[in-house]
C-alpha cells in the first residue's frame, strides 16, 4: 500500500518532527510513503476568510499534486476536512473539477483515522504506559468528519490515561485567521478551555493550528505543560517499546 503524505504547510514549518513521526509510523505499519514535493498549503485559511477565488487556486494546485495518489494522509484534522468536505463545495458550479474534488475527497484521511479505519490497526504498542494525556478534539475533524474515537482509542490502547477533560470537545479559539482578527475573544476561549483541564503530562491533538494557539497561550501564561502533536505521541507509543525491546517487531 502506498500513501502520499500531505504534511500540511503548518507542520512543514512548525511541527516538522510530527511529519517525520508520521512517516516512521506509516512505514512501521507496512505502508510505503511518498512525499510529493510540489505540495504547499490546502488553502483553508483563504477559504475560511471568504477568499474563495484564492482558495480555489490553491485547491487546483493541490488537486494536481495528489492526482495519482492511492491514498492521501494528513497529520491534521482541519486540513483533511478542507480536502474532504470543502473542496467539493468550492467546485459546486464546475462539474469536471467537482468530480476531481470528489475523487480526492474519497481517498483522503486524517492520520489516526487512516490507521484505525483503513489499516485496521488499533494497537500500536504500549509506549505510553503511565502517561496522562489530554486530547483536544479539533472542531473540523470532530464535527465535519465525525472523527472522535480513533485518536483516543490509539492513545488508550498504547497505555495512556486519557484524562477526563470537560471541555475536550469545545473549540479552543484558534479558528485560523480568527485568532488574529479577534485576538481577545480567541484568547478568552483558550483560557476557558485550559481552565477546565485537569493536571496532565501531555496535551495533544491532531490539529497543529490548535496546538500552536493553545501551546502559545500555555507558554505565554507560564503554565507548565508539554504540548505535542498527535503523530509524535503515536510514534512514541511504538518507539518506546522498540527502544526497550529492540528485537521485537
Amino acid at each position, binding site marked *: 500500500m502506498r500513501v502520499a503524505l500531505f504534511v500540511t504547510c503548518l507542520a*512543514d514549518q512548525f511541527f516538522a518532527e510530527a511529519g517525520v513521526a508520521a512517516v516512521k509510523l506509516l512505514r512501521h505499519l507496512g505502508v510505503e510513503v511518498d512525499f510529493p514535493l510540489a505540495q504547499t498549503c490546502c488553502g483553508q485559511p483563504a477559504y475560511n*476568510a*471568504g477568499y474563495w477565488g484564492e482558495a480555489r487556486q490553491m485547491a487546483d494546485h493541490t488537486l494536481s499534486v495528489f492526482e495519482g495518489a492511492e491514498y492521501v494522509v494528513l497529520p491534521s484534522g482541519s486540513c483533511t476536512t478542507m480536502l474532504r468536505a470543502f473542496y467539493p463545495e468550492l467546485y459546486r458550479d464546475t462539474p469536471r473539477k467537482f468530480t476531481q474534488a470528489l475523487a480526492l475527497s474519497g481517498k483522503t484521511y486524517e492520520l489516526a483515522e487512516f490507521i484505525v479505519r483503513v489499516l485496521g490497526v488499533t494497537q500500536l504498542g504500549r509506549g505510553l504506559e503511565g502517561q496522562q494525556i489530554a486530547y483536544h478534539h479539533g472542531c473540523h475533524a470532530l464535527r465535519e468528519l465525525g472523527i472522535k474515537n480513533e485518536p483516543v482509542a490509539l492513545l488508550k490502547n498504547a497505555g495512556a490515561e486519557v484524562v477526563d477533560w470537560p471541555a475536550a470537545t469545545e473549540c479552543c479559539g484558534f479558528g485560523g485567521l480568527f*485568532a488574529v482578527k479577534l485576538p*481577545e475573544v480567541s484568547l478568552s476561549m483558550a483560557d476557558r478551555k485550559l481552565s477546565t483541564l485537569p493536571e496532565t503530562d501531555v496535551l495533544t491533538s491532531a490539529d497543529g493550528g490548535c496546538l500552536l494557539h493553545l501551546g502559545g497561550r500555555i507558554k505565554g501564561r507560564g503554565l507548565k505543560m508539554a504540548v505535542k502533536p498527535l503523530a509524535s505521541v503515536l510514534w512514541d507509543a511504538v518507539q518506546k517499546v522498540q527502544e526497550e525491546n529492540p528485537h521485537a517487531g
Partner: protein
Amino acid sequence: MPVKANDYPKESARILREEPQVRDSVTGATLNFERNRQAAYAEVGAQAWRDWAEAVKNHVLTHLDTYLEQAERSLTANGVRVHWAEDAEAARRIVAEIARSGGVKKVVKAKSMLSEELGINPMLEGMGIEALETDLGEYIIQLLGQSPSHIVGPAIHLSLEQIRRLFHERFGTPPEAAPDALASVARKLLREGFLKADMGISGGNFVVAETGTLALIENEGNIRLSTSAPRIHLALVGIEKLLPRFSDLAVFLSLTARAATGQRLGTFVSLIQGPRREGETDGPEEVHVVLVDNGRSSVLADPQAWETLRCVRCAACLNACPVYRQTGGHAYGYVYSGPIGAVLAPGLLGLEQTQPLPYASSLCGACYEACPVKIPIPKLLLTWRNRAVEEGLTPRLERAAIAGYTLAMTHPALYKLASKALRLLPEKALDNTVVPVLKAWTQGRAGLEPSPRSFRELWEEGIK
C-alpha cells in the same frame, strides 16, 4: 435599537477587558442550557425530529405566499384583525394606530425579539404610553435601560449581585435578598401592571395557517396574562413563523422547548384562537396580529441565505457557541446575537452595516449540532464572508496578505524559498509587535517558533 454591529471587534474586546463578570455569567448560564438541551435531545433521539422540522419549515418557506393567505383567512375567521407590515416603520405605524384608536395609556409587553427589532418601546414612549416589560429578565434590563443580550434569557449577562444591587437601589430590598425574594417584589409590581394595562403586546412562536392559532411558549405566566388580561392583545409575528397544520405543533412546541431550555415543554403554552367570545368571562375584546416582513422576503429570495428563515428563535446556537459565551450578546450590536444573529443580520440589514459579524465565529460547528431546524450556520457564515470579500468590504492589508500567500502557495519554488527565508530570520523574529498579524498573535501568546529544519528539508535528506 440602533445597529452597532460594525463595532463588534472593539466592543467584544472592551467587554472582556472591562466587564469580566459578563463572561462568567454568560458562560455559566449557557453551559447549563446546553447540558439540558443535550439531555432533552438524547431523550427522544432528536435527529429524526430535527429532520422533520427542517422539512416542514422548508415546505412552508417554499410555499409562503399560499400559507400567508391561508393564515390571514383563518385568523380573520377567528375574529382576529390581521395587519401587514412591510418594514419596521410600517409596523410601528400600525401599532401606534391601534394604540391611538383604542385609547391606550398603558401597555404590558410579553417578551418579543421582534418588538426589539422594530423599536416598539421607544415609539410607545414617544407617544406618552407606558410600556412595561413583564418577562422578569426583560423587566430587569428595562430597568437598566439595556437591550437583551440573549434571545431567550435577556438578562443572562448579569450576575445575581448586580440584580441584587439594582433591586436594592430601586425597591429597597435587602442587599443580600434571596433570588426568590427579588422575584416576588417584581411579581407584585408586574401584577399591578397587568391589571392596569389597556393593551398587551406579544410576539408569536408559531401561527398555524390551517386554524389561525397563535402559539406562545413561556415559563413565567406573564405571556398568558399579557395576552388575556388587557382589553386589546396585539401580536407581532414575522412572516416566517407559519406552520401548515395544527398537528405540526405537537413536535414544534416540544422541539423548541427542548432546544431552548432542555424542557420537554414550556411551563405555559398558550394557543390563542381569537378574542373573547360571547358568553366567555375573560380574554381580550380585540386581538390583532401584525405580520411583519422587515427584510425577510429578501432573505427568502436569496438562494444561499433563505434557510436562515427556518429559525424558531430558541437560542440553542447561542448556548452552544464558545464565541458568544465570551461576551454575551451586547457585543454584536444587534438585537439578534450569537451565531444566528451573525447570519441573520447581514440578511436583514445588508453586509455594509454588519460585516464583522460573519467573522465573529471560529467555525467550530457547535451551532449546527444544536439547531433544532438544522440551519447550516457555519456554511452561511462562510457564504457571507465570501460576499464581504467579493464586495470589497475586507481590509486592504488583509487582501494584500492573502494575495501574497496565494502566490507563494501556488508556486512551489516560491514556497520553498519562503520556507528557507523563515529559517534565516534572526531568533525571535516572529515574536514581534510591529507586523499587525504577529502583534495580534503575540498579545497573550508566546511567539511562533519555526522548526529548526522544515519537514521538506528533513525528507530530502532522508528519513530513516
